[in-house]
């Protein structure tokens, strides 16, 4: 069963085609990497899936349904920017998530925040960008969603924190859930990926099983990406 189906997706800005006939599917329980250089169209695809952009053509189905409030209830999305309301404290943000998402596990969020030495009473306005990104990751991973979509979760983070983030993602990710992760830091994520999608200039260059690719090409996904996308 596909949790996410993208068919013939197209999006243009000022007559320039940013996404060109993109089709792929994410199966339940799989971790899929949407890999591409900066500006390749990864974030645009993610924004289209999350109803933040309107497609010119194509279809997006989540759990067999077109994007709606029903599909949003089963998707947990981490954008590449901070969306937190700076006038709130971490605790107030937890209240907000608890109010709107029935699958939000507050206890788990509090434990994760404690692990990260983040005080729930802290106002978000007094937190650094990195701290806010961690809060956001905790919020997203504390939902029991069917599909997690993480857009550049490792972007702008130092290598030691990257490991911690990857650990947080993996240890809080239910087996029957699926994960779509975008990044240009392929070597940091490739070991966890079941399937990979290479994207360049808004077009899909490759969509295959990660393990069989490694065997077939006799190289790492990172190396294959460098060879494929020039």
């Amino acid at each position, binding site marked *: 069963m596909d949790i996410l189906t993208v068919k013939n997706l197209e999006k243009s800005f000022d007559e320039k085609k940013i996404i060109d006939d993109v089709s792929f599917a994410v199966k339940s329980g799989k971790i899929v990497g949407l890999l591409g250089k900066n500006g390749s169209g990864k974030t645009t695809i993610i924004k289209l899936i999350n109803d*933040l952009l309107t497609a010119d053509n194509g279809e997006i189905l989540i759990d067999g349904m077109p994007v709606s409030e029903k599909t949003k209830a089963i998707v947990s999305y981490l954008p590449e920017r901070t*969306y937190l309301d700076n006038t709130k404290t971490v605790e107030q943000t937890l209240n907000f998530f608890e109010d709107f998402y029935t699958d939000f596990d507050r206890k788990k969020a509090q434990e994760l925040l404690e692990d990260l030495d983040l005080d729930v009473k802290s106002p978000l306005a007094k937190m650094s960008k990195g701290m806010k990104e961690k809060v956001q990751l905790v919020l997203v991973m504390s939902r029991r969603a069917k599909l997690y979509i993480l857009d550049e979760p490792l972007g702008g983070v130092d290598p030691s924190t990257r490991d911690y983030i990857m650990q947080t993602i993996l240890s809080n990710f239910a087996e029957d859930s699926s994960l779509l992760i975008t990044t240009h830091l392929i070597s940091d994520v490739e070991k966890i990926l079941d399937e990979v999608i290479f994207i360049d200039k808004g077009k899909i260059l490759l969509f295959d099983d990660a393990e069989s690719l490694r065997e077939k090409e006799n190289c790492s996904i990172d190396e294959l990406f460098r060879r494929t996308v020039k």
Partner: protein
Amino acid sequence: MITKLYKYDIKKMLRILPYFYVITIVLAGLTRIVNIWNDIQVMLIIGYVLSGATYSAIANVLVNTFVHILATVQGGFYKDESYLTHTLPVTKKQLLTAKYLSALTVIIASILVCFLSLFTMFYSKELIATLKVYLDATITGINISSGLFITLIAIILFAEICTFISMAFAAIIKGHSYNNKKGGKSFLWFAIFYVISTSVTVIMAVIVFAIGGMLPELIAETLSGKALITIIILGLILYVGYAVAFYFISQKIFNKGVNVD
């Protein structure tokens, strides 16, 4: 879900405004107190300064109300915060309605504060008597009580506020449906909506007054009772119509989808 959205929207819109409300009412109260001794030269000058400050505070409340509403709508729907707004498990209709209701609540609160401040500054038995005389003169010939007349005027003002909010929302949503120059296009669409609604109002007034044989009264200095009641009813119908029409226009454009930055 609308209740939850409303709760968060209203908190956001009212984050700073209550401080302005308190300052305005306190200034109005001080002006009133100082004016008790307006036969003393120094107190008279202080009274002038305080009343000037109160007028500024009232203007500040009104300007800030609209700025906060527009900033909350634009921020929530199209800026960084929109990444959370549009991924919440709620419909676009619920998002829009909650913003609309919270904007309406904040505007009513601000207008009440302004009225309360003016009332605090100027209330006297003589003023009320003068207003009553003007009111009685206005409603002569239209066979309705002064209470009903005030209620009708209040309803028209309320409908006008609703129209303004609907028009502003429709303009922001339409302006942000483009890929660039979204702020400028929102402003342009507001001007277009305003010109259209004003033109419709004028055309409708001419038609209705012509049918009723009252056309010369449209430019006359004084109105007959029949003309006054016609204006009240027409105003009521048109403003309610505009508010509903612009709300549905906003909803229709919003439902087509967004393009956040």
